[in-house]
């Protein structure tokens, strides 16, 4: 048994591990492979004991994480040694904190010192939060571009952010923080997780 994965297999298993349970079409949309191709790779990952496929959806097995980590260490050695990327990652930590704070102000408003669920009746308030989110997402451009220079797949995050923002502009406010859709927070959370795996770091919270 090899200790590392082939590149497209890594991409597929990586997305599967981020989403935990996903069908081939959902994975294909993110990794820019055809659903048939993803289907095939899932089958071979399943044969290798890294995934379980049942009823059109796949799940990663416990073996998936260590294998992904070992593979990332190899294929992203260049990223981990790229000072440009590391400087941008440093900045990302600040932006990440600002994004989470902004997400929270989307969900809750301060009432006399207590946090209360935002009932979204104050369009001016919501508008400001959305504008701020858009700007914070814009601050990832540099990091995404720097990562994409090593591995083009990172560019899909920019596309996903743009799609979510366009949906929000169309009035679909679920696309701000809904955990069950490809919302700004979902994309951001997956990007953050992906970034940690790429760099071989642990999540702090």
């Amino acid at each position, binding site marked *: 048994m090899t200790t590392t994965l082939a590149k497209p297999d890594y991409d597929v298993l990586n997305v599967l*591990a*981020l*989403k*935990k*349970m996903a069908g081939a079409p959902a994975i294909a949309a993110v990794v820019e492979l055809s659903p048939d191709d993803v289907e095939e790779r899932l089958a071979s990952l399943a044969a290798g004991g890294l995934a379980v496929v049942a009823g059109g959806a796949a799940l*990663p097995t416990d073996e998936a994480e260590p294998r992904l980590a070992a593979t990332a260490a190899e294929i992203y050695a260049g990223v981990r040694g790229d000072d440009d990327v590391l400087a941008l990652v440093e900045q990302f930590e600040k932006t990440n*904190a600002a994004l*989470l*704070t902004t*997400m*929270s102000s989307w*969900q*809750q*408003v301060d*009432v*006399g*010192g*207590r*946090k*209360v*669920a935002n*009932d979204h009746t*104050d*369009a*001016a308030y*919501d*508008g*400001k939060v*959305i*504008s701020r989110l858009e*700007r914070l997402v814009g601050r990832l451009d540099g990091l995404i571009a720097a990562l994409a220079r090593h591995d083009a797949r990172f560019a899909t995050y920019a596309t996903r952010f743009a799609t979510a923002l366009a949906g929000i*502009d*169309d*009035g*679909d406010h*679920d696309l701000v*923080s*809904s*955990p*069950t*859709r490809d919302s700004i*927070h*979902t994309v951001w*959370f*997956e990007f*953050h*997780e992906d970034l940690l795996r790429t760099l071989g770091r642990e*999540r*702090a*919270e």
Partner: protein
Amino acid sequence: MSAPGWTRAFTDDGEVDVELLGGKGAGLVRMTRDGLRVPPGCVVVTTACHLYLDRGALPDGLVDELRDRLSAMEAATGRTFGTGPEPLLVSVRSGAPVSMPGMMDTVLNLGLSREAAIAIAERAGDTAFMADLVARFHAMYSEIVLGALDERDAVDAVVARIRPDDDPADAYERVWAAAEAALDEELAESVPAVPDEQLRHAVEAVFRSWNTRRARTYREHHGIPHDMGTAVVVQAMVFGNLDDSSGSGVVFTRNPVTGEPGLYGEYLAHSQGEDVVAGTRTPDPVARALPAPLLRELEGACAGLEARHGDVLDVEFTVERGVVWFLQVRSAKRTPEAAVRIAADLLRDGTASPSRALSLVTAEQLRAAARPGFDGDALDEARAAGRVVVTGIGACPGQVSGELVLDPDRAKDRADAGADVVLARAVTSPADLHGMIAARGIVTATGGSTSHAAVVARALGTACVVGAGELEIDAAARTVRVGERVLAEGDPVSLDGASGELVAGALPTTTPAAATEAMDALLTAATQASGAAVLARVTVPADVVAAREAGATGIVTAVDDVLAASGDLNHLVETLLEKGWDGGGSGTALDEVRQAVARQVSGLLAEAGGADVDVRAIDLLADESRELLQQTAVTTRHPELALPLGVPALVAAQRAGLALAAAESGYGGRMRLAVRHVSDPAEVRALAEADGAGPGMGTYLTSPRAVLNADALAAHSAVVWLEVRALQAAMFGIPARQFLTAAPLDSYVARGLLSTDPRHAIDPSVEPLLAGLAEVARAHPDVPVGVRLSGTVSDAVAAQLYALGFRRFAVDLPEVRPLLLGLGRAALAQ
């Protein structure tokens, strides 16, 4: 002054027309007319915006008019725009008739020419104060008017080096040059140093912001016309940071957390409004921090405002050298508990009319306020007994009990099996989502109130505690350790998402008495207005008590639900499979039905008092039964069960059981037994001809055919219910069970493939059927005709059904109060 009409002073007479003055402008005019001391200013009206956007230049005469308005503001304040000895500074704000995102925000401190800046430093005796003001203005103008985004560390460094006694002219030059350099580097732009130009550009920027991409998209989505245009508010600045007799604050006319009467707010001496908002310094409670005469003035003004508006308000003010100025008055944001108490209090003391009071609470706030919390005594006891395992940071409020589970897969499995689950994790990753969705509560060892876990939990509305750092989760041993205490997976725990406490053991829940009292007062007013009856769907005796407390005038229940909850149903189905329908004697399936119904329903009737009880007969094909039963086996063996009167003896056995239950429990109200899927007058006649004593027979309409035949059906029914979900499902041709869950309809509707989401709105195709049924109800005043609604009921649906003429409703228990409120509002709006 004879102004031609591009501008209006706050003090000018004339109609307060929001279309013309915008929301902000109209608000300031009203405040001025209310006698509040508002800093003088004027509104550039929306018609000027139309013209500007049409021809790309400000209307002729607007600049001169603004100059005249500034002169009036100069006269009123004793200050001069752009020069000393007392410079007048103004704020420029956008104010559309409807607030919308993407519009230009506020520019403060406009009017800082070199001369004005120097004069301000000299008047204040503080060059550092002026340097800060200049830097803030330049940054704000750059951001708002020119679109700059960058942080300006270099400018901040220059400002930080300036001392109060530095030479003002020199300081101004240094700050301005640094700010200009930063802006030039970022955008190759420049901020005009001449105040008149600053003002003109700011007004034009407001007008242009009407057409930003986001504002256009927003208008298109909300059907707001593009030619509405925005107004611009130009107002004299007042300063709370001049000296110790100045300051700024925000007050609520009542406590927005609890709803208690009395001013509630904060004041920060020697500060400008942004300092209070930014939280850089801690403000003091107004009652302590404001000098007595000012506090009295504020209290008087707030009482007057509350009486005029019939609502609790949030008031922003600034004190400049001992004089209070009112900057903004808005409806106050509040907690759900406060919303209910405030509405009830204002209704009682006559400040708000019933229709006003009911408009002060949303259905969502009512649901939240009615949500049961931990019993106070039990919680105190648990605390005293040392059962609080750990206290983290409350991230999403909610008080829940459940079994402790340590991984998301198991959380999902246990929840699927019907258990309430509290999920404990060291950290959460995106891959934990399925477990977080399944859990009633989430607790994590790491993270702050703005961690990913907190964001996800809030999006899900799940009680959540984060940052419970002492929690050591041992995945291998399947235990949680905190110091000496060890909890094992599966142990009952309770979680408070507000206080952050994790408590060992399950805690009982209740609705707080104070909240119940306030809700009752409001809902009584609502019911008086609507004259509607709302019945609650229940399955166990405790539900009946809760239903009556919530204001339900009766209950609806279903024999299969009751028997499933009591555990009788499975045995019944086994007997049926084994013995079929034969015979009615002891030990047969029919006898078992009769006995079980008598036994279980009598418990409900005992709690019902004299309230109406409508019982739906067993429907083994219903979606609700599908999960519970070996349904396929039963219906394959007994296809006659698919028809409402396929087994007449089954209906008769239930009726006999209900008669026994009524006798046993001493029930004295009206009870009826209704059969689902009936659609033919012949079926109803057959039901009505039932022999012997027992409840009257009625119908549950589920199909378009039944609704179209409703007139004939009602003629022979003791009661008629329409199941809206079933009817909508039939019209859409989608199985009704798909209406109960998020998947698959959420994404289907999001793709724009259905013009109506049948879970949340009544489809236009269904409306004529409903109108026909409402007509039938009017034609048969002696037959109760009601509408059964599933899940949460929106105000829009309540209003629609009320307008059609329906006055009898049945809903799930938690929806009784929100529906009573919605119907009351609908009645008062008519």
